[in-house]
């Protein structure tokens, strides 16, 4: 019995502490009954060697205890497909954002090969941290037993509405995009448009709505925004108002359902306007000194202006590429439709 006691003690060490006593008591009752049966069968007690062989055959304490652990994996099969999807998404976006941010930083600080190599060498580490954070979040979700709702397109790829073997995940996403908007979605768009417009109009009076607690720096910093930002601001307000008006007209004319690719294209074209306004700022002066004679901050001012300007150049380039891509796709679709009609 002493060997069995030691065996159970060894198992106990690897059990979840809250259930240790309960599990060990049950295991002891079962194993003792088993042992008694064996002894009855043999008509005598087990020898030390036989006892040792029997205990060995029961399995190592670590393995026995592991079976009682509630969870054997970090991210289980139910969450794993979503985890993989989110990880891939996070990897992609992280790489894109990192590339843009580093490009702007390097261009602003003067192009140097050393900086490029450094940025490239840092990328795997950044991606690793990103993956670690995503994994940690999903491990917590797994442990807390949270059931994630499947995103619609992803749901098609993972869930029950997947038409087996017919549609690829890429096609499923296209179908999702082409799906007509519901009336409720159109109404929500209008309400959201009003809220955004109201928010935009309040921002000049309450800068914290845009910058949060950082708005305090506007008061204490020796810099202020150049007048060109007012032009930029009113461009954005007008564009938001136009978009809202477009949504309202669609709603009133019962045309909210269709996928408005033309509308999106026009939005992209108009979206370039405020960007171009900033890029056309005289002397690239986007930030100016509150006190024009403040010589101590002139060098820093030049750096800030250069950084912001480069950032806007990158954003404008992205919007332009998006525009070209969309225009190209529309042309191709129109060509295909014409071919099909012939």
């Amino acid at each position, binding site marked *: 019995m002493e060997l069995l006691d030691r065996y159970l003690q060894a198992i106990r060490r690897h059990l979840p502490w809250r259930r240790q006593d309960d*599990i060990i*008591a*049950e*295991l002891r*009752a*079962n*194993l*003792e*009954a*088993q042992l008694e*049966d064996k002894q009855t069968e043999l008509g005598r007690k087990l020898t030390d060697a036989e006892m040792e062989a029997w205990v060995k055959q*029961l*399995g190592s304490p670590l*393995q*026995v205890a592991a*079976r*009682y652990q509630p969870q054997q994996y970090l991210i289980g099969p139910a969450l794993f497909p979503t985890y993989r999807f989110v990880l891939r998404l996070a990897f992609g976006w992280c790489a894109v954002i990192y590339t843009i941010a580093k490009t702007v930083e390097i261009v602003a600080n003067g192009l140097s090969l050393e900086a490029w190599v450094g940025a490239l060498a840092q990328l795997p580490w950044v991606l690793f941290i990103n993956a670690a954070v995503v994994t940690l979040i999903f491990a917590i979700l797994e442990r807390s037993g949270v059931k994630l709702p499947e995103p619609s397109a992803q749901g098609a790829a993972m869930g029950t509405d997947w038409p087996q073997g017919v549609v690829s995940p890429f096609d499923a996403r296209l179908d999702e995009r082409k799906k007509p908007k519901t009336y409720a979605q159109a109404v929500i768009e209008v309400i959201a448009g009003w809220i955004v417009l109201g928010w935009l109009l309040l921002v000049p009076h309450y800068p914290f709505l845009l910058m949060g607690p950082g708005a305090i720096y506007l008061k204490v910093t020796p810099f202020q925004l150049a007048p060109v930002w007012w032009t930029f601001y009113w461009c954005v307000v007008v564009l938001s108002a136009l978009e809202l008006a477009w949504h309202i007209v669609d709603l009133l004319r019962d045309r909210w359902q269709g996928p408005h690719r033309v509308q999106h294209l026009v939005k992209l074209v108009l979206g370039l306007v405020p960007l171009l306004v900033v890029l056309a700022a005289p002397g690239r002066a986007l930030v100016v000194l509150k006190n024009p004679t403040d010589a101590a901050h002139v060098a820093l001012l030049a750096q800030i202006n250069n950084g912001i300007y480069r950032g806007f150049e990158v954003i404008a380039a992205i919007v332009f590429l998006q525009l070209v891509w969309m225009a190209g796709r529309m042309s191709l679709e129109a060509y295909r439709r014409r071919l099909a009609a012939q």
Partner: protein
Amino acid sequence: MTLAENLFENLRLELRRGCLTLAVLAQLRQEHYGYTLRKALAARGMEIDENTLYPLLRRLEAQGLLTSEWREEDKRNKRFYRLSTDGKEIFTRLLKEWNDINTAITNLL
């Protein structure tokens, strides 16, 4: 173990996994404690390793399919399990599923 044997073993275990639950639920229509349950299953041709059976009982209880109580028997405290109300319902449904699969496989053969 050869690759084929390894593959067979994996498939066999996969096939057995669901059947074990059904067998345990079937046997626990009558009350048992761990060891007698194991013996009863073995006597009917369903051998289950103790390291599989005892944790399985706890999982099924946590899922609400079994109820248990500690009771003294033969001067020893033992934990006795039996099907809960939910367990009975699930067992009936699983049994139907099992019979359907069995019929389908028989038809295929």
